[in-house]
């Protein structure tokens, strides 16, 4: 069973915002909403680190837990999605999410808060796969097209990896073993839980 995950490699991210642009273009994300964004720590200082952040599709998603209308669901591949026809735009999920993933478009002169919008792992929503309704509400359903999220596939340095958790973890593991550093994946523990077994990654690499 494929279980979809993102990993962002802080050693490779160059803060180009290509993932942000790819996401907005692929999913027709409106102004004021960023499903994905790049966060830089110690910006301008030697050794600054950037990571690309979006919905982490948590195994135990807090947004799903607090939603009063139960509009969230998790697919068999571990992608956390929601039904915009049920969402009431209350914003509880935004407060609950440790990654700031839920976004709310502002509509009208008074900035009325619209229905929540977030990263779908390019898996669309509860409408029919590839339908116009799905595209209009949630964006492109690339998974149904046999593709991976646009942000990860467009990443020029391949800092952002997305896809089957086993595959992306193995790609990242190979990198770390080759370069000998950078095994700390920010947000991993919060979103996916602590590792249940000791792996080669947790042990220091001997050169």
């Amino acid at each position, binding site marked *: *069973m*494929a279980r979809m995950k993102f990993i962002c490699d802080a050693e490779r991210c160059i803060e180009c915002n290509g993932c942000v642009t790819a996401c907005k273009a692929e999913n027709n994300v409106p102004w004021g909403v960023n499903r994905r964004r790049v966060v830089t720590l110690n910006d301008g200082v030697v050794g600054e680190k950037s990571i690309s952040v979006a919905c982490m599709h948590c195994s135990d998603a807090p947004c799903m837990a607090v939603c009063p*209308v139960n509009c969230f669901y998790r697919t*068999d591949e571990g992608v956390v999605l929601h039904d915009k026809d049920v969402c009431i735009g209350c914003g509880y999920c935004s407060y609950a999410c440790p990654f700031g993933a839920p976004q709310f478009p502002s509509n009208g002169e008074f900035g009325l808060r619209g229905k929540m919008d977030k990263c779908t792992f390019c898996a669309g929503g509860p409408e029919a796969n590839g339908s116009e309704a799905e595209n209009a509400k949630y964006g492109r359903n690339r998974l149904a097209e*046999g*593709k991976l999220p646009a942000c990860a596939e467009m990443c020029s340095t391949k800092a952002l990896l997305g896809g*089957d958790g086993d*595959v992306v973890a193995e790609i990242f593991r*190979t*990198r770390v073993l080759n370069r000998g550093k950078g095994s700390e994946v920010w947000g991993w523990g919060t979103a996916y839980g602590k590792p249940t077994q000791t792996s080669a990654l947790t042990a220091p690499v001997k050169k």
Partner: protein
Amino acid sequence: MNARALGGTIVMAVALVACGEKPQTIDASSARKSDEPAWAVSNTAEPAFAAPGWKTTGDKAAWEQQIRQRGQAQNDYVR
């Protein structure tokens, strides 16, 4: 019952209407829709945008294999 008492009763009944409460439980009309799996064949899908060399057949194993294979395109060490 005289007209005054009848009028008072009507006014009270109208005033108490606001005290009523609409049901707030989630019924079938407002419940979340079910989603079809990513590997399901959909009549509304646009095959023109499918990954090159791959076609949706409704086979879960084939779809997972496609996703894993596609994922390896992100691996610098196998290029």
